[in-house]
């Protein structure tokens, strides 16, 4: 070999390892999943078979997400058994649905629940009933079953090639950044401690139990980004951190989230507890899917799945609910004394005949964030990188996605083995319609390649480890708390009962979290129970 050949071959081998073509054809097995679009979209065409049967029930619950299940759970707990729950999909759970394979159970959506504060009575009662909360559910600091508290280490952040513990950027944070962190957290502490009129906390979960002082409500009219600027907080790291919180909880950039909602995220959580720190969360391998599974144990036989409520009309004595049974391809007309409508509110105008025009407008005003959730099955965990070890929640700084959660983290297993990573991506950087279109038009291969390329940054060996990559597309994952919406008259209109129909959904709060859905579900059930006993 002469010198020229030698140098050429060197250049060639350097290229082999350094300049691979952009598209890697080596993708793992996998598929694209999602809510049954054609079932829901059928509402637009309205071609359903005429009801072939008429049946009666005390209460019909439409929708088996957390709100619907909570309503059913409350009715069942109170000894009221005369109800039916209609779920469009093949399984209940809504945003908290989950999956399972040979390696682990894993979430398809919501994956944790922060420890509820004293105001979240309904959620605490539920957790006590399921054995998660131990002892008095109304105590200032109750205890929780430690198997369900997130194991350490909880979260880490990847920046500049290093993993750090915790989510607030510390690597490369200047003194100025640190000073602004302190100022921001002092501000949050003040909000956390502030009580408004009638002794209500400034920011409470459920939001309905928050104070309505005018200066607090005014925060709803500006964006979270604007609020930071008003406070002369301009640290790029702090802005990333706050924006991340908004994207993670609301599926929306902080520039499009109301400051009231943004602050609510940071200042409402005060779950003081006996046996843990306050920023602890409850979680399970299948995420909130565990709660879904446990909640419905007492009434699973009253859940009708594959059932699309396609027409709802109030008569003098009852509500007529036409339910299309997907598997049987026929409709059943249910005559219900009351209906708890616990599906997303954008569906309501499509099925509620004679819906009040203002209410209709309110429903149509809600903006929904599209999400993508991927579950990656790995034959073994990636090699540890630099810094903090693999945690439950793992976030990449500056990524358009939200990072990944290790579903096997909450496993009692004391040795390493195969794992499932749940990767979250809120398509928050563009108008909802555009994002939704992109979500559904982009094929599985392209999403998978984007995800793997992104994960290759901290984990160069990830492609060798992933054996399965499934993607779930959520077109209308959660309602966005855009500025002006939460404390608007339109949103308020959704929360009052409409004759025999009670609305119950986190959409009523203006943002999508478990506790809000649970609150409205239980509240609707309580209304119904009151009427039933009268």
């Amino acid at each position, binding site marked *: 070999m002469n*010198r020229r050949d*030698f*140098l050429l071959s*060197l250049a060639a*081998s*350097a290229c082999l*390892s350094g300049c691979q073509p952009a598209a890697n054809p080596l993708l793992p097995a996998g598929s694209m999943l999602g809510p049954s679009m054609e079932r829901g979209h059928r509402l637009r065409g309205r071609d359903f078979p005429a009801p072939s049967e008429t049946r009666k029930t005390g209460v019909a619950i439409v929708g088996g997400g957390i709100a619907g299940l909570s309503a059913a759970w409350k009715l069942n707990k109170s000894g009221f058994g005369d109800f039916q729950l209609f779920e469009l999909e093949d399984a209940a759970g809504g945003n908290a649905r989950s999956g399972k394979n040979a390696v682990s159970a894993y979430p398809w959506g919501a994956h944790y629940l922060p420890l509820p504060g004293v105001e979240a009575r309904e959620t605490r009662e539920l957790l006590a009933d399921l054995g998660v909360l131990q002892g008095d559910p109304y105590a200032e600091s109750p205890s929780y079953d*430690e*198997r369900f*508290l*997130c*194991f*350490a*280490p*909880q979260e880490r952040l990847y920046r500049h090639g290093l993993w750090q513990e915790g989510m607030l950027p510390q690597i490369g944070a200047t003194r100025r950044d640190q000073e602004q962190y302190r100022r921001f957290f002092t501000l949050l502490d003040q909000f956390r401690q502030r009580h408004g009129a009638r002794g209500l906390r400034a920011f409470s979960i459920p939001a309905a139990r928050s104070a309505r002082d005018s200066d607090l409500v005014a925060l709803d009219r500006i964006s979270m980004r604007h609020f930071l600027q008003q406070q002369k907080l301009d640290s790029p790291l702090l802005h990333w951190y706050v924006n991340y919180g908004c994207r993670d909880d609301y599926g929306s950039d902080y520039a499009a989230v109301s400051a009231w909602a943004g602050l609510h995220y940071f200042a409402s959580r005060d779950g003081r507890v006996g*046996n*843990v*720190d306050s920023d*602890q969360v409850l979680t399970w391998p299948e995420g909130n899917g565990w709660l879904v599974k446990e909640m419905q144990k007492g009434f699973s036989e009253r859940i009708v799945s594959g059932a699309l409520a396609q027409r709802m009309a109030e008569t003098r004595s009852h509500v007529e609910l036409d339910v299309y049974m997907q598997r049987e391809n026929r409709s059943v007309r249910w005559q219900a004394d009351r209906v708890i409508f616990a599906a997303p509110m954008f569906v309501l105008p499509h099925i509620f005949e004679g819906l009040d025009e203002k209410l209709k407008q309110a429903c149509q005003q809600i903006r929904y964030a599209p999400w993508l959730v991927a579950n990656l099955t790995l034959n073994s965990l990636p090699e540890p990188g630099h810094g903090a*070890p693999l945690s439950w929640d793992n976030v990449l700084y500056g990524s358009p996605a939200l990072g990944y959660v290790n579903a096997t983290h909450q496993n*009692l*297993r*004391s*040795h*390493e083995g195969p794992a499932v990573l749940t990767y979250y991506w809120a398509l928050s950087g563009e108008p909802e319609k555009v994002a939704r279109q992109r979500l559904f038009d982009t094929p599985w291969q392209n999403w998978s390649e984007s995800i793997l390329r992104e994960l290759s940054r901290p984990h160069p060996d990830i492609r060798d480890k992933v054996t399965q990559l499934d993607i779930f597309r959520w077109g209308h994952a959660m309602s966005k708390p855009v500025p002006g919406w939460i404390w608007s008259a339109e949103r308020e209109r959704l929360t009052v009962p409409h004759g025999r129909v009670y609305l119950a959904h986190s959409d009523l709060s203006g943002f999508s979290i478990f506790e809000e859905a649970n609150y409205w579900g239980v509240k609707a059930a309580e209304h119904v129970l009151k009427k039933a006993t009268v």
Partner: protein
Amino acid sequence: MSIALLFSVFVVASCGLAYELVAGALSSYLLGDSVTQFSTIIGTYLFAMGIGSYLSRFIVKGLVARFIQVELLVGLAGGFSAALLFVIFAWVAGPFKLVLYGLVLLTGILVGLEIPLVMRILKQHYGLKDLVSQVLTFDYLGALAVSLAFPLLLAPHLGLIRTSLLFGLMNALVAAWALWLFRTQLAGLKALSVQCFLVSALLLGGLLGADRLTSLAEENLYADEIIYTETTPYQRIVMTRWKDDIRLFLNGNLQFSSRDEYRYHEALVHPALQAVRHPRRVLVLGGGDGLAVREILKYPGVERITLVDLDPNMTALFKRLPMLRALNQDALHSPKVSIVNDDAFQWLDRSHDFYDFIVVDFPDPTNYMLGKLYTNTFYRLLEKHLSQHGLAVIQATSPLYARKSYWCIDQTLRSVGLKTAPYHALVPSFGEWGYIIASHQPYTPPERYGASLRFVSAGLNPVLFQFPLDMAPVETEINRLNNQALVHYYESEWKHQAP
């Protein structure tokens, strides 16, 4: 001829840089702190080259013959440098740096001699202007080629030992080639030919035997002869022997030395088991070596021993190798013993049985996975499987080297309502080691021991159960799944206090 000599400049320069890179990489690999290692190696090497250049003026006669000999010497010194350093490091840690810098100095001086000699040889063919330009061009080209090839091709594919041997061989070949080119002008051709042949043969032999050399060096990273290695899905098992001392390492951590393991295992088993009235069912978690089981089998009343160890390769090994079967006295073949290869936490979570005596002998809490096995959640589970009058014993790392870790385990056991009796024993190969007995009823040390023992006796009780001031209890957090306090304690303590 001049082209040929210029090409040899290219090779010689490649070799020179290669030795420098090998020395730098090897020292940062073995000693750490790569910035310091690389900059001191490069500095020493350049300085040595300066010395070589200076010394070249004293070579007056027989330029070509000296050049050939310098090449052969560089080939030898540089070629065997990595192998020599590996072996020195593995055998005796002390003079490693001395040998390292000595070698760097020697190679540097020899390499420093090369270029001036070549230039003087080539002087007959070029004017000064062209000479300097040509020689330095090929010198730097050679350096570029190696600096690219070293990290991309050589180090990852050949390894350091074979890389340096390969370049040594190239030096020797350059010498042989020069010998051929100047065969008509050289005096003492025969002697030079023999030297060339010998050096080439040595280097070639080294290159062919490099595998053996590598494993020899690795073997010596463990002080004694390696008699068994196996990489299982869960761990790397290495066994060594020196005279009659067999040592077991899991992932590089010493598990036992056959010379004093009786101290460890007698102290682990007997203070508790002797105090259990009518022990019938026994559970051993971890301890796939069967040595704890050997001690338990000294109690004829024990009817059934369940051994739960994650790694089937580990239990199979201690069932199979005669040397190990002699050590555990065939304990794992006893009809009373049933072996379960499963994750202890998950297995215990599924099991519904009660035990009169439970041995918890897990590896130290070096990571979050193992840390789970020391949490209150695990001990709550343990408590549920312990019969009313039963006792459990937990290996609890060293109360001397990891004092907070030790008392954290005690605190965590007590937090789930168990009563504890902490004690410790001296196991020379480990140092001062700690155990904790946990039970529902208060524990009293036995007044006599029935089994025939070499270490534990009733007279030893005061020594076992009393803690000197430097190991006395300290306040700690409770180790929970959601704080993993113990892993944090352990990490900071062993990092700073390990002997």
